[in-house]
């Protein structure tokens, strides 16, 4: 019997190595695997490259991960937030590396990694600072930048429901980066609110087929845990 459900966050993150590249899903707090991020802090892997849209806020979650000195480099589109103190301090002090990537290019690079596309061309950033050092090329008279796939060792994703095959159903705007990140890592770990029986999830509602998911951990904290003001 296929059963990807594990019983603890520690089990879900067992074996994560120093030096890993880690994709972290979510846009704002929606779809963000916050419990798995806390788990990664506990687990203690160092020298990480983390890939996500924002660089964290306040002193919790990703900001805490950076604050603990576990992160060597961050690849993101929007390092600013309401309270970016941790990232900005580390960055000013040269203690963290930043690779800034336009949001759509970030998404497409991750999707490419999952889809077996090593490189693609996009007009985004052509002629700007963010195309510096990258190959440019004309197609039909327009300039495009070549971008490379962004593969990872680990993906941490969040979903609303899962079954034992690892099928994931997202809620609201909670899909965002999660489906592509689930495709692009050697090990994909999902934090979900609800576990359903196999066959209960509607085949057309499944946003990530279980084929992409290695471990699922349920974190049920009632309805009030999501605090948008922390975004």
């Amino acid at each position, binding site marked *: 019997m296929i059963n990807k459900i594990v019983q603890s966050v520690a089990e879900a993150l067992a074996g994560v190595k120093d030096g890993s590249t880690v994709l972290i899903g979510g846009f704002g707090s929606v779809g963000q695997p916050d419990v798995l991020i806390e788990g990664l802090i506990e687990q203690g892997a160092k020298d990480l490259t983390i890939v996500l849209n924002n660089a964290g806020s306040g002193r919790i979650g990703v900001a805490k991960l950076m604050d603990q000195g576990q992160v060597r480099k961050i690849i993101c589109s929007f390092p600013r937030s309401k309270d970016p103190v941790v990232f900005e301090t580390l960055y000013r002090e040269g203690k963290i590396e930043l690779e800034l990537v336009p949001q759509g290019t970030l998404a497409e690079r991750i999707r490419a990694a999952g889809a077996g596309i090593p490189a693609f061309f996009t007009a985004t950033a052509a002629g700007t600072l963010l195309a510096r050092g990258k190959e440019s090329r004309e197609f039909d008279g327009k300039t495009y930048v070549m971008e490379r796939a962004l593969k990872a060792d680990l993906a941490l994703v969040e979903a609303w429901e899962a079954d034992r095959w690892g099928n994931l159903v997202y809620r609201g705007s909670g*899909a965002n980066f999660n489906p592509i990140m689930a495709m692009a890592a050697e090990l994909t770990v999902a934090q979900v609110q609800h576990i359903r029986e196999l066959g209960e999830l509607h085949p057309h509602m499944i946003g990530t087929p279980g084929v992409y998911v290695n471990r699922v951990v349920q974190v049920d904290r009632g309805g009030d845990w999501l605090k948008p003001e922390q975004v």
Partner: protein
Amino acid sequence: MPFNRDQMAARLADDVPEGWCVNLGIGMPTMVANHVPPTREVIFQSENGVIGMGPAPKEGQEDPWLINAGKQLITLAKGASFVGHADSFAMIRGGHIDLCVLGGFEVAENGDLANWATSENDTAPAVGGAMDLAAGAKRLWVIMEHTTKDGRPKIVERCGYPLTGLACVNRVYTNLAVLDVVEGKGFVVRDLAPGVTLEEVQAKTGATLHTQ
């Protein structure tokens, strides 16, 4: 009298026809949605994968799983759908957004836009989806004050700040005027704020203004 921020957003909203799919940037652009009358169907897309946003939720009716690109709580319009980030930016990059509205630091007469960094050495500049939108949307309208707080022109011959996109801006809405960016010509005045003269706008502009 120059437009205030709400009037600028309303002026822009007047020009959005029914049926367009529109992406609104963070900040003043977001205000545009409040000025499109509910009788005129416009599809608001948010780059985090929401196609068809409705008005802001009433107090007590917020769904914490529904946010826009600015991370504000939103509602869905009837007919709304969700996609993930890859598909959302496929929509943007692929030219399926009729209009994108962004804020700006500078707009040049060749349509160049600078709106994400104020120097090459910014501390951790944030680009978000601006470059994708600038490169991909069918039309890009910028909404911004005509000058900086200390009076320097933001509408210029050539941008001084790092670019967001090249030759991408089609129109600029400011507190003083509405300007079209016409290829091979530059800024063409489309409209002036009530009581504002062309001379006054030209004096506050770093590029030549043309009239029709």
